[in-house]
């Protein structure tokens, strides 16, 4: 049957000190993306400033597993979020509930509906690192949001992040390119997910979620991207030698000098001959 899971933000990944109980103007809204990683459950998502949910507070309708929303701008503040099976009355008990989720003004947050290690649906807010990436690089973030034990993340068959547990993340800035990513149980190199080609675009944070359930054999990857993190190249070093000088002015100056000497010389000669 339906279970009610309450996640307090204090214990979740959002632990920033800002807490606006009265949201300010839209000047510095937070950017929030919702990720659905609970298998076999199409849901409606509600957001509320209080403990009850109404039809007007519907954030997302018919939200399917393995999908990600676009970024939604929310005023900074504290929110209660609830997930109901699609079409259910929001006055009833939610399938998943997260109370007092702090959404700091200006923050970039991903709220993930997923299974915990034991297979219970939970909502976990992650604060996204949107600091600039170096020119030529992109950021790869991997989040363990699956009902599975600790895993290693393989890139090109080699472990790059090891011992990642639910609901944690690892990240690295890499030269832009395609990474053949796979997920294996910690200490092994036999993929339980993938390998799948993941584009690490320049100036973009590519966030890969491992979701689903190992027991049910439906582990999968979901990808969220955050763009606009790029930096400019530091300069344009476009010349290692001097352009050969134009010979025209030197030749003309020489000619003028020679002609001046000739004129002077011939003038003197003319005077002498006449004398």
């Amino acid at each position, binding site marked *: 049957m339906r279970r009610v899971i309450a996640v307090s933000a204090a214990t979740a990944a959002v632990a920033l000190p800002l807490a606006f109980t009265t949201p300010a103007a839209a000047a510095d809204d937070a950017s929030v993306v919702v990720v659905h990683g609970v298998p076999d459950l199409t849901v409606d998502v509600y957001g509320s400033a209080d403990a009850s949910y109404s039809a007007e507070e519907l954030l997302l309708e018919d939200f399917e597993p393995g999908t990600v929303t676009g970024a939604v701008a929310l*005023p900074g503040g504290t929110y209660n979020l609830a997930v109901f099976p699609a079409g259910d009355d929001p006055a009833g008990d939610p399938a998943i509930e997260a109370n007092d989720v702090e959404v700091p003004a200006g923050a970039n947050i991903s709220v993930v509906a997923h299974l915990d290690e034991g297979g219970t649906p939970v909502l976990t807010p992650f604060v996204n690192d949107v600091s600039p990436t170096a020119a030529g690089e992109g950021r790869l973030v991997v989040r363990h949001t699956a009902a599975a034990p600790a895993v290693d993340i393989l890139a090109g068959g080699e472990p790059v992040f090891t011992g990642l547990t639910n609901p944690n993340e690892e990240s690295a800035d890499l030269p832009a390119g395609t990474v053949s990513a796979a997920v294996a149980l910690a200490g092994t190199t036999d993929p339980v997910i993938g390998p*799948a080609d993941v584009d690490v675009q320049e*100036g973009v944070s590519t966030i890969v979620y491992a979701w689903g359930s190992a027991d049910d054999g439906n582990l999968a990857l979901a990808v969220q991207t955050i763009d606009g993190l790029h930096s400019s*190249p*530091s300069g*344009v070093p476009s010349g290692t030698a001097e352009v050969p000088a134009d010979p025209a002015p030197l030749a*003309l100056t020489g000619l003028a000098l020679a002609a001046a000497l000739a004129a002077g010389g011939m003038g003197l000669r003319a005077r002498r001959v006449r004398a």
Partner: protein
Amino acid sequence: MSTPDPGRRWKAGSAAAAVVCAAALVGVGGWALSRPADTAGDGLSALTQATTPSTTPTSTAPGPTPSVRATARPADPQAVRVESSPPPSRLRIPDLDVDATVRAVGVQADGSMVIPAAPTRVGWYRYGSAPADPEGHTVIAGHVATIEDGPGALAPLVEAEEGMDVEVVDADGTVHRYEVRGRERISKKRLPTDAIFARDGAPLLVIVTCGGEYIPELGAHRDNIVVTAAPVG
């Protein structure tokens, strides 16, 4: 006396030489006057014109309740792959006899833009905008000259003037036409890289090479020559 007065002949010769001297001096003066100024057209001001701040197209919630609707999209790795615009393959500035092969380049270990080693080729900054993109700056740069190969394809860039036609041909054959808006010589230390490499705002072609004083100890020029060209048609 049938022989002409030799004094008169010398005098005529002297006058002729003086005329040659004057003509040569006029030539030098004309050459000096024909030197391109440090700035042409509107200089670099096109770089910052009509650049709109990039905002994610999201709805805003006026009240404390999140009365916004979000829409979802599939998130499997294949679904998020982005199609990029074709890279440029050729740059032409007919008035300056510039006709160069363009290849896509990235960044060097020190964070500066890669410039193709052969000065007859120019590089397009692959992480920035492409000519077919709806917004942002297409940046193309090339060596003004190298020790190994002499003058480069962009050596004449210093003579670019407002209104000159520029063509960029994409790898798929599409021809994009531009018109020079301005040119400026600017110290490399003050190069406005964020404005040059902007990925939002109105489309603009920015062509960069080196110029100004050559510093042999550094094997480099003190300045960059930057030309902006806006799309036409």
